[in-house]
């Protein structure tokens, strides 16, 4: 009970302090430059110069401390050795590009980058298109979306149940192997199957992200003017043609947004790989590779270098996004 009160108290305190800042600072500004006084106009102009920074202040400070500073720190670290003290120039980069683990990670990551966003978007699109046409579509949507609410670790547990393998002569409790055995095949250790295991891991993330893609794309599909579809019906297009030639092209923008979001996620996510294989059996990816070097290799220079490579991979997408953001700025 007491815990609960303390918890409630600190929650209220935290949220309250934040709210108080915004309210108080504005109040203060209004007191310093009162809007209803002799110099109202001048005061308001002065207040308006300051006010945006009151609104932005916390955000800018937090972004700087929590993200900008670590990035700069990483750049600095990437030019230093494992202890972060001796300057090694570009050695870390040289090492990185010669490293097998890195090459494997890059190869796998590229696979992930292609497969996961593509498959999630694809299945999301299919799910969106189909569920929009039926009465119980919303229920179907909720169910397909559900994996989004599951943590990566939870998802890993779930999928361990799918990929579990037992000796050939005992009953399989992994669903996939049970099916394979029922079809007369031999049980496989799916997550240890070279190369293909990457895909078995990707399936997990696809499973999680499809719901996200579906929800967004379904909204976009519903935003398509009905008349264009009817016009296509009159033009004699069949449902598939309507979908491919009329609907999909009209939501390219949304597809791109969904794709980008999932791409960024793919680069950042390491939990699944960590929990399922920790990069063994040739499934290493950059995020996990970095994690490895940071905590197992204890080499912050190299970890930082890998982190920067991850960021560099997203730069094109970032630039595209910044352009989009500036278009309407």
């Amino acid at each position: 009970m007491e815990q609960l009160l303390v918890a409630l108290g600190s929650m209220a305190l935290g949220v309250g302090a934040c709210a108080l800042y915004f309210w108080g600072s504005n109040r203060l500004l209004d007191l310093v430059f009162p809007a209803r006084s002799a110099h109202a106009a001048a005061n308001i102009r002065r207040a308006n110069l300051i006010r945006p920074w009151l609104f932005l202040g916390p955000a800018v400070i937090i972004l700087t401390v929590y993200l900008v500073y670590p990035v700069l720190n990483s750049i600095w670290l990437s030019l230093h050795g494992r202890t972060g003290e001796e300057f090694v120039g570009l050695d870390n980069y040289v090492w990185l590009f010669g490293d097998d683990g890195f090459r494997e990670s890059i190869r796998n990551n590229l696979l992930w980058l292609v497969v996961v966003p593509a498959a999630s978007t694809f299945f999301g699109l299919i799910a969106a298109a189909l569920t929009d046409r039926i009465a119980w579509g919303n229920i179907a949507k909720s169910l397909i979306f559900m994996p989004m609410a599951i943590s990566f670790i939870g998802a890993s547990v779930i999928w361990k149940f799918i990929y579990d393998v037992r000796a050939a002569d005992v009953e399989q409790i992994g669903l996939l192997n049970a099916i394979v055995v029922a079809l007369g095949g031999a049980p496989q250790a799916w997550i240890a199957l070279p190369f293909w295991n990457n895909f078995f891991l990707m399936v997990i993330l696809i499973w999680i992200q499809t719901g996200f893609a579906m929800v967004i794309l379904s909204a976009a599909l519903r935003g398509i003017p009905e008349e264009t579809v009817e016009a296509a019906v009159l033009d004699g297009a069949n449902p598939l043609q309507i979908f491919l030639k009329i609907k999909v092209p009209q939501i390219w923008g949304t597809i791109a947004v969904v794709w980008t979001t999932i791409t960024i996620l793919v680069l950042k996510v390491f939990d699944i790989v960590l929990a399922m294989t920790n990069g063994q059996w040739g499934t290493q990816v950059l995020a996990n590779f970095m994690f490895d070097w940071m905590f197992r290799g204890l080499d912050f220079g190299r970890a930082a270098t890998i982190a920067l490579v991850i960021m560099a991979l997203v730069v094109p997408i970032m630039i595209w996004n910044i352009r989009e953001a500036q278009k309407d700025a």
Partner: protein
Amino acid sequence: ELLFKPGEDPRFNWASYEELKKQDFSGKTVTLFGPWLGPDKDLVERTMAYFEEATGIDVQYSGSDSFEQQIVIDTQAGSAPNIAIFPQPGLARDLAAKGFLTPLGEETAGWVKENYAAGQSWVDLGTFAGKDGKEDLYGFFYKADVKSLVWYVPDNFEDAGYEVPTTMEELKALTEKIVADGGTPWCIGLGSGGATGWPGTDWVEDMMLRTQSPADYDAWVANELKFDDPKVVAAIEEFGWFANNPKFVDTPSAVAATDFRDSPKGLFASPPACYMHRQASFIPSFFPEGTEMGVDADFFYFPAYAGKDLGQPVLGAGTVFSITKDSPEARALIEFLKSPIAHEVWMAQSGFLTPHKGVNPDAYADDTLKGLGEILLSATTFRFDGSDLMPGAIGAGAFWTGMVDYVGGKPAAEVGADIQKAWDAIK
């Protein structure tokens, strides 16, 4: 709240407990951070209770199964606990090199040398170079494990008429005989989530000790003997003799994918999925509930080749206590670890072995533990788990991956070369 009332049970060295009471640190606390969770956590807390009771220090233990990451972050960030309990010395050495550990001092080094069986080797294992390059004792070993063990079900052996082998030759013969009888001799599982592969490293280390001299083993651990050296490759292949023969193992395609904790369960299946399981002394925790040691399951020493004159080598491991934030209380705790009572109380519970020569072996909770303790104390050659001594990137990285690759079909020579390459890269 003390498990064994002070002064009652004559197996315990209560004098050493009384000795502790001379210090008074009432109101002080010491923070302890380690990898132990669940039942292990209860064990350590119950043991520390004696220290708390005697000195008035409040010991705050917290455990995490991501201990390795956590301690790195905490030491780096300056929010370290007073004492860290490293599951292996490799990480402690890395942190010592970065200056995050406090030397324990000559006196402690002397004490270990005096009181531990093969004292010097424990001192050596706990001695690292500090940030300034100067070597000091940073790690105090407390709680050891014996790894050169094979677990089996005596009844199954009896039913099939098998004898416990005493030499490697006999073990291999038995393996083949079981296959000939239509059974599966071994359960091997390398899976361990993020640490998948480590059980394979233990196999290789044991094989190194059984095929090469202790000096070679030491050279290998220090990478003076390269990983791609034929001697090492041969040891890997020795492991392969067991693990890579599809007839010898329970789930041949899934050796690497089978969790090491699930793996021993095959021993107890009906009919038995396998007859033997090579694993360290902690594995009974993962035996099915209600398994009675000595009755339902037992162990035998993972034997050495009779044909090679290498004695009875024992592979072991231990947890290392290091001071990550110095304080008189932390020092007092290290002192406590030297007292026999600190060992005996845990010995009397479960899962604890100690090289401390001054403790009463009768304190061990059961005969199995006592037997294990004897193996530890009487080993002709004792060597510490090599992968734990290697740099993290190897011992907890490339070596693991190498083992996974090896049971996945990669030739031993290539595996050795890969690991060596990784090692070269970190210099």
